[in-house]
């Protein structure tokens, strides 16, 4: 990364001796969609509020385009935030909500009207100009909240759980709209979310946070395929984590009693991860082969794919099979014996 657009340096924050952020460092590039992902209480919202300027960090600095903005009050920072509950002004109509921020700048009336109309068109809010906030739907409110920020042409847009208040169907549609909008405008987005699917589908890069610390930063593929530790592996998607034994230069997956042969790096890893969709199961036909045999404990048919809970030697793990490929597999029932297979390249080794 060249010159980082936003740089967070050693930022710490405590509330009444509870550590909310502990020496957080982040570099965010221009025009990327960056997600802060973590369960509630991990400090992601505090970090967002510090970037917005609502909270002052106890230690550390925030640089925007190389300029220290740590001590600037929120009303002079060239960035905007979209709140989880949208925080639209209930006493103003749609237009007045959108032009609220422009009226604080020294802009001519014509310019304000021009920019408001531009953003009304962009977010398809025409016809709602005179409506009160409680007279429009949740999805429309979300777009008004977005419009109110974007009309200011911020360098950086912060989004706090942008889709949490929408129902499931609208959420998926809005996800794509957000990404398209960002691509069109080129504004850097920082999104706070607890929803890993949302983070995966929206972000260029994401940071996983826990207890006020950043555990891992990377693009969705890196985070999913190469999680740094067990917590991240379990937090993003479903994880099958096995113990690894290193005996006489043999690498063995303990629970499966399986020797990994094609491995170059024979470091002392203690754990490995195999994602469920990388494990395939097949109904056992010839009883002779007793290698890699498991028993099906649960079957969940989910339309596009089926989830199987498999037990081997008292250890349980998941296998997800695409239903397009495996019409035979639809015959697999509880307590059936199945043959397990996976490609050795899809094993990811790590230290706990």
């Amino acid at each position, binding site marked *: 990364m060249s010159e980082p657009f936003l740089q967070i340096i050693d930022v710490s924050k405590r509330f009444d001796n509870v550590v909310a952020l502990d020496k957080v460092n982040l570099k965010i590039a221009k025009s990327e969609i960056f997600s802060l992902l973590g369960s509630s209480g991990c400090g992601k919202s505090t970090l967002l509020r510090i970037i917005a300027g609502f909270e002052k960090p106890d230690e550390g600095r925030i640089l925007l385009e190389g300029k220290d903005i740590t001590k600037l009050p929120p*009303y002079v920072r060239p960035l905007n935030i979209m*709140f989880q509950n949208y925080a639209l002004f*209930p*006493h103003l109509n749609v237009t007045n909500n959108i032009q*609220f*921020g422009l009226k604080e700048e020294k802009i001519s009336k014509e310019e304000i009207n021009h920019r408001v109309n531009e953003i009304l068109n962009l977010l398809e809010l025409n016809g709602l100009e005179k409506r009160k906030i*409680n007279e429009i739907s949740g999805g429309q409110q979300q777009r008004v909240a977005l419009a109110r920020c974007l009309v*200011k042409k911020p360098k950086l847009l912060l989004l706090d759980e942008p889709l949490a208040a929408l129902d499931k169907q609208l959420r998926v549609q809005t996800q794509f709209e957000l990404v398209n909008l960002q691509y069109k405008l080129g504004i850097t987005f920082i999104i706070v979310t607890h929803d890993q699917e949302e983070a995966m589908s929206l972000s260029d890069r994401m940071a996983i946070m826990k207890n006020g610390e950043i555990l891992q930063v990377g693009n969705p593929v890196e985070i999913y395929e190469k999680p740094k530790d067990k917590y991240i592996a379990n937090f993003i998607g479903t994880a099958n984590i096995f113990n690894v034994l290193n005996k006489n230069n043999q690498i063995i997956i303990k629970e499966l009693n399986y020797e990994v042969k094609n491995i170059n790096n024979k470091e002392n890893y203690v754990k490995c991860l195999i994602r469920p969709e990388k494990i395939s199961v097949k109904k056992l036909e010839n009883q002779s082969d007793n290698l890699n045999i498991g028993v099906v404990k649960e079957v969940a048919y989910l339309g596009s794919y089926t989830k199987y809970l498999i037990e081997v030697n008292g250890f349980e793990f998941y296998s997800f099979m695409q239903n397009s490929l495996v019409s035979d597999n639809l015959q697999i029932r509880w307590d059936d014996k199945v043959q397990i297979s996976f490609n050795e390249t899809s094993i990811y080794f790590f230290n706990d």
Partner: protein
Amino acid sequence: MIKNFKKQNVWFVFTPYLWLVLFFFVPLALIFKISISVSEWGMPPYRDLFSLSENGLEINSTLGNYLFIFSDPFYIRSYLNSLSLAFTSTVLCLLIGYPIAFYVAKSKPSIRNILLIMLIIPFWSSFLLRVYAWKVLLQGSGIINSVLIHIGLITEPISMLHNHYAVILGVVYTYLPFMILPLYGYLVKFDLNLIDASNDLGAKPLNTFVKVILPLSLPGIVAGSMLVFIPVVGEYIIPEMLGGSDKLYFGKIIWDEFFVNRDWPIASALAMSGIVILVFPIIIFQLMYAKYNFRNE
């Protein structure tokens, strides 16, 4: 069953109206009746509206009482004094009460309840006692004068009692909670994110207050101001105890007409005029405000 239930419902709805009729409209009608009666020496000190005599039914009604009070600037001045007292103390209550209500509403819930109780506790003692306490504090040999003399700021006690400043002080002190509580009621529901949002959109704290906080707490301001303004116009006890002869207030005039001059018709006419002058602007204001609110909601 359903029929019975409906019957009960009807009574349930009518009880407040019954209350209103019995304890508001009937007394008001009586006062109105007295206000158009002719004054007379006796008990009660007015002539019956209708009487039977050898000439048949006689109606002894007059608008003279009203004509009399509106022709005498003394009454009008006292009413204006009361209006100005009510206005001044409402503004002062608002200026003092708003920051308090805001602070209480924005405190942590645990502290908030303690603060609210502290606001309400003075109500547990008698209103008369609380006003009398001010008399003790302000008088020539009172605590404030003693302290000021003791630390050498003054040599002679200042006369703080028995003027209209003392009345304003007493009224503001007494009516402050009536301003704070409705304001608190609105401010406690206020979404703090709106303040952050306004700041984030570039509004400095003062603009945020004027453009966001103030308009959204307007219903609380209106409610609190009404609760202070209306009773203060007719306030009698505080001017009587803390006031002097520099300004006469409306409540005191009505009292004097009733109990000193024993001119019930004049006193009633004064009371009726006071109500009408006060009520009509308030009704008009309420209608306008309801319209405004309707447009805004």
